[in-house]
């Protein structure tokens, strides 16, 4: 192999590796999750705060009273949120910043905030949200592969269909 061919081969391999590296980075930074925030009691926490406000990127995404759930769509493997916790009605709100790593394999993640604030381990306050399919999602769908189908009917009923 002469020098010029060798050089070309090296450039091609380098380009391929760079593209693969970009793809790998995209896989990690672009992973989308739907995070559900719960303000619910559990085995670990009997009493939950009166109200929890969740802010992500400075935007309020959920305001949870007792036994309520909120959600937000996020990108990446870490969720940084600001929590405004009011323990009792009329009480003083406490602001705190929390960073939470998100499991890659979960699309929907439920965070039990009272348990998290109580110092429980991640396994105890993080669980997977498994969506239940709606009726329309379960109903059989007719695939239309011919985009000219019905183009010439002009809304009239054919003799055969009558």
């Amino acid at each position, binding site marked *: 192999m002469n020098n010029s061919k060798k050089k070309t081969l090296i450039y091609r391999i380098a380009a391929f590796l760079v593209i693969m590296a970009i793809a790998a980075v995209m896989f990690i930074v672009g992973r989308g999750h739907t995070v559900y925030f719960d303000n619910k009691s559990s085995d670990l926490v009997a009493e939950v705060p009166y109200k929890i406000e969740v802010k992500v990127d400075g935007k309020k995404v959920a305001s949870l009273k007792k036994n309520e759930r909120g959600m937000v769509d996020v990108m990446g493997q870490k969720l940084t949120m600001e929590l405004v916790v009011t323990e009792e009605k009329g009480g003083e709100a406490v602001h705190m910043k929390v960073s939470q790593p998100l499991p890659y394999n979960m699309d929907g993640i439920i965070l039990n905030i009272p348990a998290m604030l109580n110092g429980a381990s991640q396994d105890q306050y993080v669980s997977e949200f498994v969506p239940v399919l709606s009726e329309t*999602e379960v109903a059989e769908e007719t695939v239309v592969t011919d985009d000219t189908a019905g183009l010439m009917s002009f809304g009239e009923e054919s003799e055969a269909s009558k």
Partner: protein
Amino acid sequence: MNKINYGDLLRRFSVPIMFVIICAVCAPISGLSPSYLCNEIVTRMGRNAFLILSLLIPIMAGMGLNFSMTLGAMAGEIGLILVSDWQIVGIPGMILAMIVSVPISALLGLFCGKVLNMAKGREMITSYIISFFINGIYQLIVLYLMGPVIPIKHSNIKLPRGYGIRNTVSLLSMRQKLDNLIPLNIGGVKIPVATFIIIFLLCLVIIWFRKTKLGQDMRAVGQDMGVARDSGIDVERTRIISMVLSTVFAGIGMIIYLQNMGNIATYSSHSQIGMFCIAALLVGGASVEKASIGNVFLGIILFHTMFIVAPKAGTVITGDSMIGEYFRVFVSYAVITVALIMYETNKRKNKSKAGEQLALAQEEANE
């Protein structure tokens, strides 16, 4: 001094002139506000320009209008379907979809280029039929192999029967992410700055490419294959490269198009796109042999203005919006037909002119 031949000029720009007249008549009748029209045209320019620009390279190489750009569009759709299932969202999702689509597009472009080399002089009809052939394979992959062979996990993408992809795949997680990356609003008109930057970069690449050795070779091949071959250019290879580039750009363009739309019509998006892109380019004053970046943008403005105002104007005039719908669809096909007729007529005219000149020269030599 050369006299301007107004007849020739009029004939050459007949299609854009016709569209300017249609738009000028229909726009006031439609009653749409100028700001709404501007907004729509700017949005559609961001949505379509990349796709239409992908048509320029094969024209440069003398391969005519690349009807097989739909191959690239299919590759882009496959990339987006997979990325949606992997739950990669936003701009990273788009980049990953492009990375997935490029090798598929390149392979399809290579195949298409090889076939078109076997059908020199009949490139357009061949590429048109290739797009139907590959559409069949695309359907086989998307309808039967996605699920059992290519893993698809999510039930909102997969058909309820357990394999195959639904008629519509939602791209809500990446909808207009590129368009809104750099937000800019001028007088109520939303400008998709990031999309325009990418389009501008492609324009620069095309301008630069024309000046490279390969670009010059392509132009030489486009003008005369025999002369190009005699001067040492590998004609077949050059034509294949032009098809590969066009298909790859079409794939990326389709991803930009679909991120703006926010969903994929799995079995029909690509089939419509080729026809409308070609029609828009022709409306901009391009021909089968010659097209420029200016034709792309003029075409988008005129063609899409007609697309926006025609249904409304149809409703106002006839009381039935479907008249306008039919009108715009029939006009798109008519424009392509007219362009092809003009191309053939010019070709025959030039041939007979060359024949006459040759006969005259022979007569003079005999005398």
